[in-house]
């Protein structure tokens, strides 16, 4: 279904007063959205800013809005998203734009830390390595969330994040839930506290865009539901 030329509209972000530039890009077989953006930068407009690294869906750098939908552009074939022979590419939603297609990921990672998405270890290098039974229910639950690549697609897809700047967002809460279920993590009390604050899991409206758009088919919405359940149980235990 190769068409000779693609009409690519790129959103240049707030620095250019929301200007959009239209490029004609030659179509190739097996062309990804990232290939299209790279072609524009290399052949048409060297001032175009965007971010990528691995090109194989591991690093989580290249997410953008494609026809209004957040996607990992290195693993998205342009043929799957074309509207006729046209496509609209913009910077990720819900994050400040630095320039063109590059967004500032700081708020996303700051919230990751605010949700206690860090390792809380108690063992030292002198302790033996803890044996983990991979079949325990908590390990199975933790395994469901460990393939997150921090691409921020779920964060861009989330309407609660859009309306509620305090909200920690799906990725950070999925990480918190994963650590809560990790037998090697000793931060249970800290995590429970962090996800129960004013920006915590209780602000989620279960709209489900995170789960619908996650490129790795993870399920942050169910993880957040798990956090709601655990915190609700602790509410009665501690009488908080």
């Amino acid at each position, binding site marked *: 279904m190769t068409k000779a030329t693609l009409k690519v509209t790129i959103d240049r972000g707030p620095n250019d007063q929301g200007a959009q530039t239209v490029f004609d890009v030659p179509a190739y077989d097996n062309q990804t959205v990232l290939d299209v953006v790279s072609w524009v930068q290399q052949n048409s407009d060297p001032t175009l800013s965007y971010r990528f690294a691995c090109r194989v869906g591991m690093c989580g750098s290249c997410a953008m809005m494609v026809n209004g939908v957040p996607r990992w552009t290195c693993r998205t074939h342009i043929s799957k998203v074309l509207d006729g022979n046209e496509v609209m590419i913009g910077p990720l939603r819900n994050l400040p734009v630095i320039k063109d297609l590059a967004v500032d990921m700081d708020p996303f990672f700051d919230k990751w830390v605010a949700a206690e998405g860090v390792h809380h270890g108690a063992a030292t290098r002198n302790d033996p390595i803890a044996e983990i039974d991979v079949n325990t229910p908590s390990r199975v639950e933790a395994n469901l969330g460990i393939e997150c690549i921090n691409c921020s697609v779920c964060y861009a897809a989330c309407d609660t994040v859009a*309306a*509620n700047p*305090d*909200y920690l967002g799906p990725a950070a809460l999925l990480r918190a839930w994963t650590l809560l279920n990790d037998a090697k993590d000793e931060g249970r009390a800290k995590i429970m506290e962090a996800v*129960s604050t004013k920006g915590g899991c209780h*602000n989620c409206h279960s709209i489900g865009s995170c789960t619908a758009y996650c490129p790795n088919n993870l399920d942050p919405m169910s993880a957040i539901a798990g956090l*709601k359940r655990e915190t*609700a149980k602790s*509410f009665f235990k501690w009488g908080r």
Partner: protein
Amino acid sequence: MLNLRLYMLQRITALLMAPLVLGHLAVMIYAIQGGLSAAQILGRTQGSVLWFLFYGIFVVAVAIHGAIGLRAIVYEWAGLKGAALDVFMWVSGICLFALGARAVWAVTFA
């Protein structure tokens, strides 16, 4: 904007309201079947501890549940923040309670 305490209060009041709403609807449908007058209805509710508790609990649950829900809506849709958001929640809750409590009192012990 919603912490664990507000979340739990809203869920617990929702649990309380579920049977109360069903009871309220059932009573309304039942009461008008035979064409009851206002005086006949008042005759049943006045001095009744049962109806006072039924609608009294209902009003308290509605005031708490509704105020927290309105808080979420005005925060996300109107951008109200900080102390103004708390004031809005409390005023909404107190108004809802006052409106409901006045009616419950009027048909039971006034």
